[in-house]
C-alpha cells in the first residue's frame, strides 16, 4: 500500500493503531493495524460486533480522538487540519440537537461557527430543510419532532457547510424498522444529489448492504478490519431488498462476520460450515 495521495482519495488510512488506557490493567487495543482507502464519492459501511472499534475509527478520522501509530489522511490532509478546515460533517445515533435553538437555528449552528452571515445562513438552512423534507418545521423546537425527524435535522446539520465527507455513527440505530428504511432511501437520494463520500457505521447487515458500495467488516480484541465486501447492486429500487443479489451480499457479510466471531467456543465449527 502506498502512502502517496491521488486526487480520487477521500480517505487513506494505513497501519493505524489505537490503544486506550495504555499500560494499565484496563488496556484495550481498540484499533490494530487498520488499513482502509476510500475514494471520493464512495459509500462505505463499517460493521462488526459491539466494541470492535467502529466508533473509534470514525473518531480518529474526525480528529475527535488521537491514534498511536500509522497515518491518516482526509482529503490528503491530517485529520486535525481536515477538521479545522471543516472538511467533514458528522452525525451520531443521538441527534444531539440543542433544545434552546429552533430546528433552523440548529442547522445554522455549524454555519455560525464557520462565520457565515445571517442571510446566507438562512438561505442555506431553508435549502437543507427542503432536502430533508422538513420545510414546515424550521421554526419548531427539536423536542416537538419525532425521532426520525430529529435525525433528519441532524443529517441536514451535518451537511450544512457542504463538506465533502460525511461520517455517520449508527444514525438510524434508534429508529423503528419502517422509519429506518425510509431514512435509508432518503440518505441514498441525498448522496446522489450531493456526491458526498460517506463512512457509515451500523450494526445492521441489510442496512450496510443496501446503502454501501463496500462493506468493511471489523472484529474485536484487537479491533481490526477482517474483510471487505464489494456490493454491486446498482441503482436501488423498491425490489432491491428482495433481489437474489441483495441476499447474496447479505450472506457474504454475515459469513465474514461469523468467520471472525471469537466470542464463543463455536468458532471452529462455524469455520467448518463455511
Amino acid at each position, binding site marked *: 500500500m502506498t502512502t502517496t495521495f491521488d486526487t480520487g482519495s477521500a480517505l487513506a488510512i494505513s497501519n493505524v493503531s489505537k490503544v486506550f488506557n495504555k499500560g494499565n490493567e484496563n488496556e484495550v487495543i481498540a484499533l490494530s493495524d487498520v488499513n482502509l482507502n476510500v475514494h471520493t464519492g464512495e459509500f462505505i459501511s463499517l460493521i462488526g460486533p459491539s466494541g470492535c472499534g467502529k466508533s473509534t475509527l470514525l473518531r480518529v478520522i*474526525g480528529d*475527535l480522538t488521537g491514534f498511536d501509530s500509522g497515518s491518516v489522511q482526509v482529503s490528503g490532509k491530517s485529520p486535525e487540519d481536515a*477538521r479545522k478546515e*471543516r472538511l467533514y460533517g458528522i452525525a*451520531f445515533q443521538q441527534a444531539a440537537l*440543542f*433544545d*434552546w435553538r429552533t430546528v433552523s437555528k440548529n442547522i445554522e*449552528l455549524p454555519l455560525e461557527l464557520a462565520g457565515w452571515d445571517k442571510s446566507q445562513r438562512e438561505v442555506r438552512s431553508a435549502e437543507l430543510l427542503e432536502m430533508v423534507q422538513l420545510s414546515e418545521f424550521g421554526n419548531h*423546537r427539536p423536542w416537538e419532532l419525532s425521532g426520525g425527524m430529529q435525525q433528519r435535522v441532524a443529517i441536514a446539520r451535518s451537511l450544512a457547510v457542504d463538506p465533502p465527507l460525511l461520517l455517520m455513527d449508527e444514525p438510524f440505530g434508534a429508529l423503528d424498522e419502517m422509519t429506518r428504511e425510509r431514512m435509508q432511501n432518503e440518505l441514498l437520494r441525498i448522496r446522489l444529489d450531493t456526491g458526498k463520500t460517506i463512512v457509515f457505521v451500523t450494526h445492521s447487515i441489510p442496512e450496510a448492504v443496501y446503502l454501501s458500495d463496500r462493506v468493511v467488516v471489523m472484529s474485536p480484541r484487537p479491533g481490526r478490519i477482517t474483510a471487505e465486501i464489494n456490493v454491486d447492486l446498482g441503482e436501488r429500487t423498491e425490489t432491491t431488498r428482495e433481489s437474489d443479489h441483495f441476499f447474496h451480499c447479505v450472506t457474504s457479510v454475515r459469513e465474514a462476520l461469523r468467520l471472525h466471531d471469537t466470542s464463543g467456543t463455536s468458532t471452529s465449527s462455524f469455520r467448518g460450515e463455511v
Partner: protein
Amino acid sequence: MASTRDRISNGFVSFLWALAGIAIIGLMWELTKLIGTIIDLPFNTSNQAMPHIWTMFSAFSLPEVRGSDTTVFQAVLAASTYSLTLALGGFVIGVSVGLLLAIIMQRFLFFERGLLPFVIASQTVPLIALAPLIVGIGNQISFGPIQWSTTYSVMFIAAYLAFFPLSVGALRGLQAPSSTSLELMRSYAATNNKVLWKLRFPASIPYLVPALKVSAAAAVVGTVVAEISTGVRGGIGRLMVEYARETTSQPAKVYVAVFGAILLGLVVAAAITAVDVLLTRNLPKKGLA
C-alpha cells in the same frame, strides 16, 4: 408561545398557594393562642408574647416613634427597600463572582481540583465570626477619597453567601453537555469560548435557575444578618433589633418588621421566577428547574 403562558398561569397558581399557606399559618397562630387560654402550654401565649394577627396589622399604622408622622408601616417599607438594594448589590456581586469561578473551574481541571475545596470550605466559616472581621478589615481600606463604608461590608457578606450556591450549580450546568454535543462542537472547529457561549452556557440554564433562587435567598438572609451584626442602620435587620427592644410597650411592632422581611423574600422570589420564565421559555417543560 403557549408554554410561556402556561408558566405564567402556573406561577399565579403557586402565588395563590403561597397566600393560602400564609393564611393557614395565621389561623394556626390564633388557634395556638386559643388553646393556650384553655390548657397550659409549655410556652407563653399571652398577647404580650404572641400578639393577635389583627394587633399586628393595626401596628402598621402606629407612628414610627412617639409624635412622628411616619407610620411603622412606612418605616418598615423604607427599611425593606434599603435592605433590598443592599441584597441586590450583594447578589449581583455574588452571582458574577460565582459564575466566573464556575467558568474558570470548568475550563481548567487544575482549578476545579484546586479551587473547589476552598469554595466549599468558605461556607463553613460562621457568619458571626466573619462579619466583624470584614468590617475590621474594611475600615482600613480607602482608595484616595473613597472610604470603605460598612454598607459595603453588608454587601460583601451577602455576596459571600450568594456566590457559593451559584458557582456550584453553574459548574454542574457547564459540565452538563453530553460528550456527543461536545464532539459536534469540536467537529465544527469551535473555539473554547464559542463552546462556552453556544453550548455550555445555554445548557447550564436548567441548573442555573435553581442556583439563582438559592443564591437570592442567601443574599437576603445574609443582608439581614449582616445588618444586625455590623450595626448598619436603615435596613430591616436593624429595625427588627430596634423594634424587638420595644416588645414590652409595643409587642406587635416587631412583627411588622418580620412582615417586611417576608415581603423582601417574596419580592426577590417573584423576580427570580420572572427570570426563570424568561430564560427557560424555549426549553422543554420537563426541565430540571
